[in-house]
């Protein structure tokens, strides 16, 4: 049986990839994907600890999180579409008017 630490390392790796993507990429779609990576890193943690302690609550939670992620992606894609309509591109650094 694979020890829990490996899962946690995997999760940390996925999270870091997500953070890296969010910090470096300007394409809104990649941006969104990176966010998904971070979210799923959290999911991995849930499942790993659920497995470790033999408690199913964590796995149930991760199911809910996936449903939530689906909804979030729907909203995110919507925003990307609006972004494209307004600016003819999907670069997240272009729109800067939403500030003071």
């Amino acid at each position, binding site marked *: 049986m694979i020890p829990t630490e490996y899962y946690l390392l995997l999760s940390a790796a996925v999270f870091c990839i997500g953070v890296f993507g969010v*910090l470096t990429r300007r394409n809104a779609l990649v941006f969104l994907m990176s966010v998904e990576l971070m979210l799923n890193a959290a999911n991995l943690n849930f499942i790993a600890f659920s497995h470790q302690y033999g408690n199913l609550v964590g796995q149930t939670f991760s199911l809910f999180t996936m449903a939530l992620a689906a909804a979030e992606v729907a909203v995110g894609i919507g925003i990307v579409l609006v972004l494209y309509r307004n600016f003819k591109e999907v670069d997240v650094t272009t729109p*800067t008017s939403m500030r003071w």
Partner: protein
Amino acid sequence: MAGALEFAAAIPALPFVGFLIALLAGHYYPKLLPKGGAIPGILATAGSLLLSAWVFLAVGSGGEMNEEIYTWVAGDGTFSLHFGLLVDPLSALMVVLVSLVAFLVHVFSLGYMNDEDEPGLPRYYAGLGLFSASMLAFALSDNLLMSFVFFELVGFCSWWLIGHWYTNPGPASAAKKAFLVTRFGDYFLLVGLVGILGTFGTATFTEFTETAATALGPGGADVTTFFGLDPQAWFALLGLLVLGGVVGKSAQFPLHTWLPDAMEGPTPVSALIHAATMVAAGVYLVARMYGFFALLPTVLAVIALVGGFTALFAATMAVVKREIKQVLAYSTISQYGYMMLGLGAGGYVAGVFHLLTHAVFKALLFLGAGVVIVAMHHDEDMWEMGGLKDKLPVTYWAFLSGSLALAGIVPFAGFWSKDEVLHEALVYGLGGNTALLVAYAFGIVAVFLTGFYTFRMFLLTFHGEPRSSTAESAGGIGWNMKLPVAVLGALALLIGFVNPALVSDLTGANLDFLHSWLEGPIEATAAGHYEELVTANAAYAAAEFSALASAGISLVFALAGVGFAWLLYSGPEPVEHTEKLGSIKTLLYNNYYQDEYQVWLAEHLTLPVSRGVSKFDQGIVDGIVDGASSVTLFSGAQARRLQTGRVSNYVTLLALGLLVMLAALGVLGGWF
């Protein structure tokens, strides 16, 4: 007869309704308002008069009332504030007096205002209605707080009515002056009121006077005092504070300056203010809480001295005035001085008696002066008059009755009351109280001057040859002006007989009706109770002095004054003898430069102090507030640079924040 007392609240309510009708109808449907609001006003005050008379009869047959009718702040573990009615012989007498004068003034206004086509009639009658309502409520109030509220309303209404012709600068500034000067006194009253509430936990007249009496009595109940003063000194301070309001309202020295200026208002208003409402309110307040003042010899002495001095001081100024209403104004100040003297001398009944008779004859004199002024087409200078005797016979005889009453000639009203005031002062003064003797001396000299200036005014107005074309063609006075004057003229002759103490002393018959009347059903407000207090607490001792001799002295002085005036002014062509006084005349004519020094005080003392306070407020208090806001503004302007609008920046910040938190957690949690 308990039925009448249930309607006591309607006495002030009726003129208030009259006020509302005149105000609202006058504003929205002026055409619907008969006589510009006079009719509702007359009906309302007539209703009040009838109700007051009914209540008066009910009190006469032993009725009384002392209860709360509306609690507007219910105290939880502390005192409550309420409105209530106190119907006892004093207030019953006062409401009859006030509503009678108010009624006659309303009728008189028909002639003075309506027939002269004055503008703003609904405003005028609304003011009269509110004025009467406030004064009636003031007279009936059962606690000092309610009294204060209506005291202020009375002051407000006097501002309203004195400034009736507000488009002229004179009345407008006179109205402001009356308001401000009386307000100055009222501040003291307000502080005194708060002090009384804090000390006794109640402002109800019958309650706190009793508590004060027991606190100062033998054995002494415990009361809260402030500033480490013993009860006697603390109560005296409270009494003096309340007296501040009285001095302002009753136009006593040095706050009397507003009253002569108030003559700028319409003459019926002057009659109302001086006879029964505004000015009477101060003296009435002293009489109302006499159970408190009677405990305090210092305050009583101050009252007597202020009163006596004012009586003399005002009388000297009345001697040189040219305008008929100015003479009356100063005589009003002087006569209220007598009332204060009477009250201060322990003569509760005497003071109230003089209040009663003065209300009648002063209303008469003012309304008579109003007739003269209308007949003279608003020329008030007495040196333009003369010979009005044949033109205005009814007014002449009524005015003569009022003048005799004012001068204090037997058997007119003023004689009986003024004599009783002076007798009280003399008797207690000889009993070992020097302050009262001094006050008596002031008073007795003022009697001479009163006789003189009254008959100077009377002779100049009605006797001799007409000194102007207006005086030759004077006339045209309607019934609505003659009737009130005639009624009051008869009353001025008769009202003194409600308490001819002198006659009872001589014949042994019990004719002191007012004295027995004021004995009253409520122990705490009975005249006899006050007398005990004055003797026991203020250590007033009465010396034996024949009432007849005292009356003789004042009558001789009064007759001397009248005779002197007759000597100087009775010829067909009188000359201005006052010119011979030279610089004294200038001094008197300018009212001892009282206005000037008060204005100087305002400009050179109050104004710099206010400037300093304003500077402190603008600089320090506002500075702190402004500083706090500019610090916030500046830091906000700096901090908002963080918000760039770029999502990537936010994410960077979030990630950095996460790192910092991790590091902090690591350091604090001891990972390293």
